[in-house]
């Protein structure tokens, strides 16, 4: 019968199956094994939240602990990718990307273009994103828009365990650099996941729920929040359609547009700060391409334009929740009426 595993286990299984299939796949990052090169227990950690645990023993020499120097080991991973390996590097928190922007933006993202398609950079950079772990302003950001902005990068943000496995396998097999953004509050969520390997194509949105009154586009952990909101809204007779883009680059604009053409209303839910966010991007795209279908102004549900607060109470207020989403939907549905 169908088997249920967690988001964490799904990513681990994808890594294991791809390492099994392709000897060029390697895993590297801070404490990705934990203890390498020192006396005592090996594979003590499997990365900060244990995603790579167990791979060290199965694939000798192919799981590397790296120094706490993101600029060095992300550069090394990108170099290894151009040299023929298919590295999966873990950069603990997306907040730490700043120190390796040159390696990612100016090198990895540009090689295919600048070398006329003769160079490929099949690197996957795994990283954790999102608020809610009580980890304060430097460990809680949702910086997906920054990476989505850069041509040459692909960005995946799975919202559930099934998508996490299929998107990770696609990411590893992809010849372009992929930012693989794992939401830290989803690691323990479980779903039915096939044992067999499978791929989910990039740029193919998932229609999580069908509805005719409003389109909710939500990303990562916000997909579950939108589903909660949709359950509540159904009680008041509002049928919401929920679209999970799964990858923000490439973005499945067709599925979003078709849905808005049907519902006439759009609410975009994105945990990021509002300015230059995915919510802005998707909202602008719909305003430009489907203006004639809109029956109400597009609404964005995002965090406020502030750092993520350290205070538990304030952090809870910062993150969009089902009530805020339902409120935005009701405004859209009630518009003009």
């Amino acid at each position, binding site marked *: 019968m169908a088997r249920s595993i967690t988001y964490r286990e799904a990513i681990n299984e994808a890594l294991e199956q791809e390492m099994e299939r392709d000897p060029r796949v390697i895993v590297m990052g801070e404490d990705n094994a934990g203890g390498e090169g020192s006396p005592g227990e090996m594979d003590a950690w499997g990365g900060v939240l244990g995603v790579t645990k167990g791979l060290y023993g199965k694939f000798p020499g192919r799981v590397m602990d790296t120094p706490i120097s993101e600029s060095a080991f992300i550069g090394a991973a990108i170099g290894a990718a151009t040299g023929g390996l298919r590295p999966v590097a873990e950069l603990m928190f997306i907040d730490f990307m700043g120190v390796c922007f040159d390696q990612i933006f100016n090198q990895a993202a540009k090689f295919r273009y600048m070398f006329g398609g003769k160079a490929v950079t099949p690197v996957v950079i795994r990283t954790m994103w999102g608020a809610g772990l009580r980890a304060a302003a430097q460990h809680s950001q949702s910086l997906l828009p920054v990476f989505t902005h850069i041509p040459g990068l692909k960005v995946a943000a799975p919202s559930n365990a099934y998508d996490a496995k299929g998107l990770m396998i696609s990411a590893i097999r992809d010849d372009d650099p992929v930012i693989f953004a794992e939401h830290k509050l989803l690691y323990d969520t479980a779903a039915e996941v096939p044992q067999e390997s499978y*791929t989910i*194509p990039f740029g193919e949105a998932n*229609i999580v729920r069908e509805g005719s009154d409003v389109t909710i586009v939500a990303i990562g952990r916000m997909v579950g929040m939108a589903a909660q909101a949709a359950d509540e809204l159904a009680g008041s007779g509002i049928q919401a359609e929920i679209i999970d883009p799964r990858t923000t680059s490439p973005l499945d604009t067709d599925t979003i547009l078709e849905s808005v053409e049907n519902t006439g209303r759009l609410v975009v839910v994105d945990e990021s700060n509002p300015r230059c966010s995915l919510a802005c991007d998707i909202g602008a795209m719909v305003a430009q391409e489907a203006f004639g279908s809109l029956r109400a102004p597009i609404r964005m549900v995002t965090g406020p334009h502030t750092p993520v607060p350290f205070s538990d109470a304030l952090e809870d207020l910062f993150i969009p929740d089902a009530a805020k989403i339902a409120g935005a939907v009701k405004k859209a549905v009630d518009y003009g009426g």
Partner: protein
Amino acid sequence: MADERILRITMPKWGLSMKTGKIIEWFVEEGSTISTGDDLADIDTDKIAGTLESTVDGLLRRIVAPADSELPIGATLAVVAPAEVPDSEIDAVVAEALAEVESGALEAEAEPEPQSVEVAGRTISYLTLGAETEAEPVVLVHGYGGDKNSWLFVQQPLAEHRPVHALDLPGHGASSKDVGDGSLSLLADTVVGFLDGVGIERAHLVGHSLGGAVVAAAAKAAPEKVASLTLLAPAGFGGRPNAGYLRGFAAATSRRELKPLLGDLFADPGLVTRQLVDDLLRYKRLDGVPEALRTLLGTLLTEAGEQAIDTPGLLAGVEAPVTVVWGREDKILPLPEGKVEQVDAGHMLHMEAANDILRLIPL
């Protein structure tokens, strides 16, 4: 000791994943006389909605599960008994049925699990329902892109009196995705190898679409193993197939490509649920499946889009009784001229007209 005159109508199990069903609407009332084959109620599951038909004759004394109630498989939905059975006895049965649901005992019952057997180096997954009896077993073989779950409305009723095995052909379901050369003989040998592998000497073979051609070829290859053949809209029966559907199905990678095609499978395109599309996409994303479907497409279709299989040719010389059934509104493989049984359905006749199919299988 329960009164043997009191019969219970229970929540059916339609498919592996079904755990509960929701009564949408009853078509009969308390006090109606019902007969085998009467439509009793529409029931919705998370996968698909269907109509529950009566398998008993008698007086419907009590409806236990009103419309809108959601109940586990096996839960008593209604009670049938002759008029002379006193109300007090019916009340007792109803109370017992409600207590059974309340206790959670029904949910706790062990579910049948798929098993697997190695055939010529491939893992073949199958689901067996029904206890071993004197009667010869039934083996169900799905069509192109289908799997053992497509028999959801058929397998359990057939299994009341005999074991019924539904298998996944190579390239499908939970079986190995390698289809070799994808030839009809390889698929037929897999079915014969399956019979040997699970120790079935002789069986009634039922095949749908590609599976219909496969069981015909299996009967030609191993006639001694076949008690009867039931071919549901089998491939290779002449007429121009819907090559656009078949090629489109093989090529589709997204919901937007797949969903519009699937309407052609049914007389009622409303049966294409979100769940059906999602399940098929999940299957098509598995490693090896796109290649398997492409290879098997060459078994079904010629380059020119004609049928590549000659099923009547395979049947020549087969002595077991052969029943051919077609949905009148089949939009995938055309209804052939000549004498075939017809039912009100599209290509997925075992889903749309399951109760007719059950009556037509010569058991």
